[in-house]
Structures are given as C-alpha cells and as structure tokens.
C-alpha cells in the first residue's frame, strides 16, 4: 500500500481544512440547506456550487493554457455515470447531505451527519463487494476521456463564458429579488 510523502499529505490536509471551513462558512454543511435545495425551496447550495464551477472553470482554462497544470477528468462510461447518478441522487435525498457537506457537518458536530458518514463507509464496503460482479457491464461502453467542447467540436471559451454568465446572472438576480417583490411605497 502506498503512502504519499509528508509534504504531499500536509498539502492535502491544509487544502481539506480550507475546504471544510468554506463549506461551513458558506452555510452548506447543514441539512436545511442541502435538503432545502433539493426541495427547491432554498437556493444557497446551487448558488455556492454554481459560483465554484464558474470560478474554477475560468481559472482552469487560464492555468491549462499557461501550462501550469493539466486537466484531470474521468472517462465517459455512460452506464457508470447514469447508474451511479441515480443511486447517488436517491441516497442524497434521503441523507440530506452530499459526501463533502456530510463530512463537514460531522466535523461541525451534527450527529445525523456523523451517522451518515458511517453509512458512507458501509456503502463503500458494499461497493467493493458488488463491483467485481458488475464491472464488465458497467465499463462495456467506454467513450474515453472527453470534454464537451471536444464532443461537440466547439471551442472551450463559449462554454466557460456561459458558466460565468449563468453565475453572474444568478448573483444579480439574488440582489434584485427583494426590490422586485417589495410592496409599492
């Protein structure tokens, strides 16, 4: 079994501390926020994720163009992503946290999240038992490592601009809301 160098582990730990702190400060590590988002009653989590995606996309585009880093993406295996997405969605609606917010909520002392993390460990063990039997079927349809621009033969920048526009639009809309619905003076 491999163990990374102390420097690598320290860097990961530090990044994780920042990650957990941001999820908590952003109000996402709470059942009300996550389940409320799934029920489409509270937009906080979608706004947080959308902003992260837009910001991340712009930065990654710049960093990869500059040769500072390379993309790291999973191959398109539609059966895996569809079957996994369905199971994940069902589980997340029941738990009311995702893995990141669940681990963060557990750290912040929310006991139902701690139980959720135990469930996640149990699920991982169950997965190791089931996977060998279904692997061939899951991976049969392998489309390789592909991005949306590559698949559609379009450049990347319109996609990234679109993400940026969506996040900006969401921000502007959130600021105008109270004015739009305020009663006339």
């Amino acid at each position, binding site marked *: 079994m491999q163990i990374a160098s102390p420097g690598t582990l320290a860097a*990961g730990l530090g990044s994780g501390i920042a990650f957990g702190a941001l999820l908590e400060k952003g109000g996402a590590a709470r059942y009300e926020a996550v389940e409320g988002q799934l029920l489409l009653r509270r937009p906080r989590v979608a706004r947080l994720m959308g902003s992260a995606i837009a910001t991340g996309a712009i930065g990654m585009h710049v960093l990869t163009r500059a040769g500072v880093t390379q993309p790291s993406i999973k191959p398109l295996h539609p059966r895996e*992503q569809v079957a996994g997405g369905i199971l994940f969605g069902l589980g997340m609606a029941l738990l009311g946290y995702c893995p990141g917010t669940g681990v963060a909520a557990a750290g912040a002392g929310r006991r139902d999240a701690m139980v959720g993390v135990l469930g996640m460990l149990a699920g991982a063990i169950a997965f190791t038992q089931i996977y060998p039997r279904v692997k061939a079927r899951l991976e049969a349809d392998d489309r390789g490592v592909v991005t949306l621009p590559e698949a559609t033969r379009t450049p990347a920048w319109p996609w990234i601009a679109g993400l940026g526009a969506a996040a900006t639009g969401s921000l502007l809309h959130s600021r105008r809301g109270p004015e739009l619905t305020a009663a006339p003076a």
Partner: protein
Amino acid sequence: MSERATAVWSPFAAGAALGALEWFTFATAGKGLGVTTPFETAAVLAQRALAPRRSRVERFVQARGESPAIDWEFALVAGIPIGSWLASRGQPAARAVPTLWAQRFGPSVASRYAAAFAGGALMMMGARTARGCTSGHAITGTMQLAASSWLFSTVMAGTAVVAAKLLFGRR
C-alpha cells in the same frame, strides 16, 4: 434552525473561494477537490485488516486496477472536518434531528439516524460506481467541462430533486 441563526457568508463568495481553492490545488498538487476515493481506500484497508480472506477484498483491488493509497485526497478528506469544526466554533449545538426533517417525519432520533445511514450508504455506492460525487464530478469535473461529470451531475441532480419531492410529499 434558520440559515441566519449564525453569520454565514454569501454563497457566491464562498463558492468563488472554493473555485479559487481548486486553482490552488491544481497548481500545487495537480489535483482537484474530491471526497469519495478515500472512502473506497478506507473500505479496502478496513477489510484487509479485519477479514482479508473472508471479504475477498483482493478480488476487488485486482478488478479495480488501482492500488489503495494514503495520498493527497485522503489527507484532504481528513482535513475537511477539522476546517468545519474550526469554522463552526461559537455556534450553539445542533439538534440531533433537523427541524425540516422532523416536520415531515417526526421527532424520532432513531428514524433520522436510520435514514441517514441508509442514505449515506446508497449515496456512496452511487459515488463509487460513478467514480465521483458532488465535489469530484459536479464541481471539479464540470468546471473542466468533462462529459462524464456533466452526465453524472445532470442525472444525479434530477434524481435527487425528484426523490426529495417524493419523500416530502406535496407541501
């Protein structure tokens, strides 16, 4: 418990900061944020320690084709609860049963814990099937315009919204 019970950041600010954290992790470690691979690692290590032959865990390791590693992402997941704990200090203790849950399903702690456990298990099985979650696919993958991540995220979000509506009924 209201969202405003304690001071929280604007989700736009927190999200932008998370996006910037991704720049940092990619620039320094060559990796993006992800949470569920370490759970798979822990599952393998636990079975190796507790029941190496009975669990036939090596059959999984061979099939998966990847050696479990205590690596950068493992340390990342270990850091998350430390960060959230630090960020949550000074807040009143949360209820064992969230109010939103109790309004629909009643006050039973056992029921809430049972649902949390089952939900967590199902969610992780889905995450490892898809090789990612809301962090690894829905943020890190979609921001890189990965087709696999856009597919997972769309299916996941659609399923989760429908499932939540069904669970909570018409309200």
